[in-house]
């Protein structure tokens, strides 16, 4: 009898909590579709000169953790992110690759000269076609790859504080998974 009397209250509370949670979810947190999937094909020219800047072989190299960061000189948050990338590149056993997204190579180079170049290799995605192939919605966006499988996708800028609190432990975990 008591339960029956309070039933409407419980239903109300249930809906209320569901709606309140929904209200505070960030619509920019787009669920990643490529987690635990093989890296999409990649073949991009370098920022400078001819030939190949980055290709599938680079990002599927076994053994190391490969981090692919999409950036652009015109992208504000990428400047914010830059110190974090510096720290990221110093973690042992990782390779950090940068792909300039819809950016003039000359501008990308100036950007890297001004803020420093944390990348082991860079490439230019002039038309952003490769980014779409990777499910990128905007810069900056960072992929963490092991043995050719995308393991984690970070949307938006990485912050320095996050490197120690989240990213480094995540990389360590990936590294310890199977000593290959």
């Amino acid at each position, binding site marked *: 009898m008591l339960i029956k009397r309070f039933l409407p209250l419980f*239903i109300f509370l249930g809906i209320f909590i569901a709606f309140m949670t929904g209200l505070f979810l960030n*619509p920019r947190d*787009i*669920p*990643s*579709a*490529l987690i635990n999937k093989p890296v*999409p094909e990649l073949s991009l020219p370098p920022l400078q000169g001819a030939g190949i800047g980055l290709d599938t072989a680079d990002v599927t190299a076994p053994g190391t953790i490969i981090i692919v960061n999409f950036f652009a000189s015109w992208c504000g948050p990428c400047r914010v992110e830059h110190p974090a990338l510096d720290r990221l590149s110093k973690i042992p056993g990782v390779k950090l690759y940068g792909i300039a997204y*819809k950016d003039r190579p000359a501008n990308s180079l100036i950007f890297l000269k001004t803020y420093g170049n944390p990348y082991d290799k860079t490439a230019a995605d002039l*038309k*952003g*076609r490769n980014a*779409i*192939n*990777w*499910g990128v*919605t*905007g810069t900056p966006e960072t992929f963490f790859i092991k043995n050719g499988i995308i393991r984690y996708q970070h949307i938006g800028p990485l912050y320095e504080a996050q490197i120690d609190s989240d990213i480094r432990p995540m990389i360590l975990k990936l590294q310890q998974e199977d000593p290959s």
Partner: protein
Amino acid sequence: MRLFFISLIYSAFCLNLYAIGVDNDQLKNPAQEAQAQAIMMQLRCLVCQNQSIVESDADLAHDLRVIVREKVKSGQTEKQILAFMTNRYGDWILLKPPFKAATALLWLGPLILLLIGGILVFRFVRKKPAGDAPSPLSAEEEQRILQILKEGRE
């Protein structure tokens, strides 16, 4: 004259038709272009969320439109193109989410709520008033009513 104004008013409502596909790279084959636009209408712009990529002016939306047109031109089916998009961006890119276990509550939720509400209303309407019919007035009460009525009249 009147007909002219009526048609003018009606044509104002057609303006949104022209707003679709401002791209210069529309497909030459009208049937293919129509098919491409039908597909684009189903795809969410990931920058200006809740707009389809047809309506959005964002760079990414434009790039996605280019891809859809290319794929339609090369003869891919709607299913193939939507699969290409969901493989990269997940179901999120579809403005109409597919029905599956994870979205069952989303699709059936309103129906369930309607059902619960319906049952509650039905039970409320059918509920008999508590107790039996009111007992007849006692002689004392009759007396009192008569008195009140009499007072009211004066």
